[in-house]
């Protein structure tokens, strides 16, 4: 493609995109999630996964964890734009390969099949703290917690063993050690 000649094209020096996790503390009020998500869609930012729940019922604070990709400039903008929203209290941001931060996702697998197949599934999941939440003669629901790519791998692996339905959460994050996000 020839180099764009436009006065309003984007810079030709493209920066590298990286995956980041944003942790956003917000007032748990009507429409707050729409504000955050609307900011992402309105400005063309990407959302890979999203997890949100109230974490402090007294102060009425929810914690939103968003996995996104972008160039350093875009990531900066996301943080600054999020900080501008009125119900947002603070914003934390981490690179996905940050060793000081734990990221986890949870998945529920429904397996339909004979006992031995389900056993095989459980075995395969051994590394990811499998919990059997429901069991019948011909089915089981297994819960695991792991990283996104590990869950991706597991769901591929379990397909031939009778996996018929997967439900998974977005990533949540927590720093290691005694430190907190401030």
């Amino acid at each position, binding site marked *: 493609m020839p180099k764009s000649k436009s*006065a*309003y*094209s984007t810079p030709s020096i493209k920066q590298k995109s990286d995956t980041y996790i944003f942790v956003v503390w917000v007032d748990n009020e*009507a429409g707050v999630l729409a504000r955050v998500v609307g900011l992402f869609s309105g400005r063309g930012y990407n959302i890979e996964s999203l997890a949100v729940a109230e974490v402090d019922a007294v102060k009425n604070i929810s914690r939103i964890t968003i996995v996104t990709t972008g160039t350093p400039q875009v990531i900066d903008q996301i943080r600054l734009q999020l*900080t501008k929203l*009125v119900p947002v209290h603070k914003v934390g941001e981490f690179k996905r390969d940050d060793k000081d931060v734990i990221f986890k996702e949870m998945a529920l697998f429904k397996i339909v099949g004979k006992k031995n197949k389900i056993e095989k599934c459980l075995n395969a999941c051994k590394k990811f703290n499998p919990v059997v939440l429901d069991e019948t003669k011909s089915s089981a629901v297994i819960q695991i917690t792991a990283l996104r790519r590990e869950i991706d791998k597991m769901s591929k692996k379990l397909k031939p063993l009778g996996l018929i339905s997967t439900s998974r959460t977005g990533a949540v994050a927590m720093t290691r050690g005694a430190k907190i996000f401030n």
Partner: protein
Amino acid sequence: MPKLLTGAEIVFKCLEDQKVNHIFGYPGGAVLPIYDELKNHPSIKHILVRHEQGAGHAAEGYARSTGKPGVVLVTSGPGATNVVTALTDAYMDSVPMVCISGQVPTHLIGTDAFQECDTTGITRPCTKHNWLVKDINELSDVMHEAFKVATTGRPGPVLIDIPKDIQFAKAKYKKPKKDKKLNGKSHNKFSANEIDQLINLINKAKKPIIYSGGGVINSGPKASEALRKFVELTGFPITSTLQGLGAYPGDDNQFLGMLGMHGTYEANNAMHDCDLLINIGARFDDRITGKIDDFSPNSKKVHIDIDPSSINKIIKVDLAIVGDVTKVIDKVNRTIVKNGNGKSNKPNIAKWWEQIQKWRNKNSLNFINSEDSIKPQHAVQRLYELTKNKDTYVTTEVGQHQMWAAQHYKFNKPNRWMTSGGLGTMGYGLPAAVGVQVAHPEKLVIDIAGEASVLMTMQEMSTAVQYNLPIKIFILNNQYMGMVRQWQELLHEKNYSESYSEALPDFMKMADAYGCLGIKADDPSELDEKIQEMVDYNGPVIFDCHVDPNENCFPMIPSGKPHNQMILGPNDQEENKIKGKGKALV
């Protein structure tokens, strides 16, 4: 036991405590309780518009010319959707505005009730914040918070959606809280170190330029004073964005004129060649920067802005100072004076001024005048000459006339120039003039308009007539959507697709129908006399100025070109052609 007030009463209590004198609105079913209460509050005057978009733009004009937030009152459903354009316009241009909308009663929300719409959903991306008040006990706090959000930090519009049952419900009124807890949304914590770095850059600069924007206006009249002092102390050349005009005197020798797509040759070349660029309250908009890759390639860049998200959004800068322009520039000025001891780097930049003079000699705003037809640039120049001794307020619509007004009308004071820059809303100028005139009843208020734009909100002439607001609508009538026609001429092989206005109304008869004065001019020799007639007339005027329909707005930075490759006017020898892919991306 304190007295319980209805929601409608609380709304007015809040407006009174926020020192609101005027609201622009249009009644409807879902705001009737508030309208019913209006009669009990003589300190608040309601201006009845003819369309809710007009209310929004009038509030913008009011806000931009006074620095106070503009207040809008509309009903649910279509009332709210009609005001969306004005909200977006205010959001793009950082205009403080508080919009109160009625909503269907809470028990009907979500049922597709008559005149129901998801107002907070629709206006979420075009306001700084909005609220749906479902509990009467929250109403006073929300109202006060709304004014705070609209006016602090980078100003902008907010919306409060009040269901009809809440307007009837009763609660205690709460006064605004005194404490200034800003929830971290207002930033004014720049450091002395940052100021020192800036001073250091100023001292070293050989080819500096100051590029100021609407942030200076928003920071208040003191910011303009500080800016003038700063320019005087440094001896630096200064250019301004469209929104920043008036912060620095337009007729001063250190002022290079507006920069950007239709900016002057000297301003754009100075931006391109400078070694120090000081951005004060502007945002590197794409109409300013042109091609990003080639934007001011050899300069150290400094950005002073109250909004941290403006920093490094478009252009990476070397030094960012986040803070209120007045405070930052005051501090810089004091530091320069303190360090000064008569030392100055003015000799350092003497060469730079020589170069700027060479660019100036191109006289890029020049045009070929005519004795047969009125040239639009000439009309604006004559308008300026005949009104410059009055404290004139100018609004515009959007298009060629807007750029000619920006180029040829020189502003000497802030808050005198109201135009839709970010959103580029045709139809902004007439209602904005209504708002400006409401705020400044004794001043001369002119809307420099195009005939296509002004037809979009023409109905507000009724408002002007009703309140005897003597606004002057100065229409540069070229029978085309001029800027569209210009681009079609330059970029689309003169295929004037749908840009010619057939069946234009007779503006003289229109003036007659509205009950205002109509003046028509098509002969250059009569222009002055007729403009004078307009200025002298004590009442609203529609001035139909027939101008040369084929005139283009120059200079222009075409697509595919950086700042230093502009198309100059018809006198320019080097015809720059725009071809290929650039066209699609302008």
